[in-house]
């Protein structure tokens, strides 16, 4: 894994550190696997709640916290494996539509908790059956050379279904086919790593893109 990850540009630790550098007093829930370690490596904080279990619960914990603390920003930061295990909680969030909750997925297509085995994301990425990581990497490289993606209004979205609207067309590769899980709004909004931090009071469900680029 370390050999292959050498050829990729993105590093989870760097991305998470970049996100948290602009967190202000945001409350952060870190899912098990990778995110819990990443948020801790970025600097321990009493406003962090890293999980080492409760798989599938990261988003729901963040939702309960966001409802209880409507004046604070809450960030659920987790991986695709954790999100897939609690995928229904995205629907629960959509109904509750908290304006102060953001969900960021480290979509590395791996189960970090159990040894970096492939998640279903590894075989259902857009542009399958091409090698998933390389296709993601091409698309992200395109985005990186484009104007900053996902500039959003700073007004509160009325509903959490807005993630599907939060990703402007230029945020996506023109050749991208929306297939499988990528049709889910939460998975269809790859944004820049710091879009969440740069859009105060936004509940953009930024998805950090993906592939083995984010593996250890």
């Amino acid at each position, binding site marked *: 894994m370390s050999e292959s990850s050498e050829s990729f540009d993105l590093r989870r630790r760097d991305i998470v550190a970049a996100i948290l550098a602009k967190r202000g007093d945001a409350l952060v829930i870190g899912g098990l696997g990778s995110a819990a370690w990443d948020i801790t490596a970025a600097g321990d904080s009493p406003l962090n709640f890293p999980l080492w279990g409760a798989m599938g619960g990261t988003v729901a914990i963040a939702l309960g916290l966001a409802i*209880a603390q409507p004046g604070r920003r809450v960030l659920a930061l987790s991986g695709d494996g954790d999100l897939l295990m609690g995928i229904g*909680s995205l629907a629960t969030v959509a109904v509750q539509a908290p304006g102060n909750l953001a969900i960021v997925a480290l979509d590395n297509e791996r189960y970090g908790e159990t040894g970096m085995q492939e998640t279903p994301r590894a075989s259902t990425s857009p542009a399958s059956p091409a090698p998933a990581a390389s296709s993601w990497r091409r698309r992200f490289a395109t985005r990186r050379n484009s104007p900053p993606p996902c500039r959003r209004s700073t007004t509160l979205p009325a509903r959490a279904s807005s993630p599907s609207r939060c990703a402007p067309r230029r945020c996506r590769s023109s050749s991208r086919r929306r297939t499988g899980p990528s049709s889910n709004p939460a998975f269809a909004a790859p944004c820049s790593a710091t879009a969440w931090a740069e859009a105060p009071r936004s509940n953009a469900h930024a998805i950090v893109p993906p592939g083995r680029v984010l593996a250890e």
Partner: protein
Amino acid sequence: MAESAQWPDDIFRVLRAADIRQVAYVPDAGHTRLINLCRADNVIRAVGLTTEEEGVALLAGAWLGGQRGALLMQSSGVGNCINMLSLITQCRFPLLTLVTMRGQWGEFNPWQVPMGQNSGEQLRLAGTLVYPVDEAQRIGETVEQAARLAFEGGISVAVLIAQRIIGSKTFGKSEQ
């Protein structure tokens, strides 16, 4: 369930008095009136779930944020919560769960029987104190004491409301 059943209203009054602010639920016939009371209330935030374990996690987050919550489900939902209950026990969070029982009293659906007959024991094994109640007039006081024990004792407590109170369901699928 008799039309005049008061126990859902009793529970609601107890939840309000206990300063419960989030009530999480998976839609359930036995809890219908209580769910509707919570949904109509301006203080309690009613959160519909896609699976019961979400509610365990949600209320852990609520507690982190300074709010008390209650989780409503029927007995078939208990099994969906087991691993997530490790979040509650490991972090010593309080949790108040109110379970309407199926698979007990005149149950017509055999698929309800496995969880209905075992959910109490499974909750105990997962670190939850269990209070079964089979008299309607005792539900309010049982929930009141369970809430006190959960939030002041910092533990997971479940009240199991017997199917004999709720009444056996037919959902129009059989006539009795």
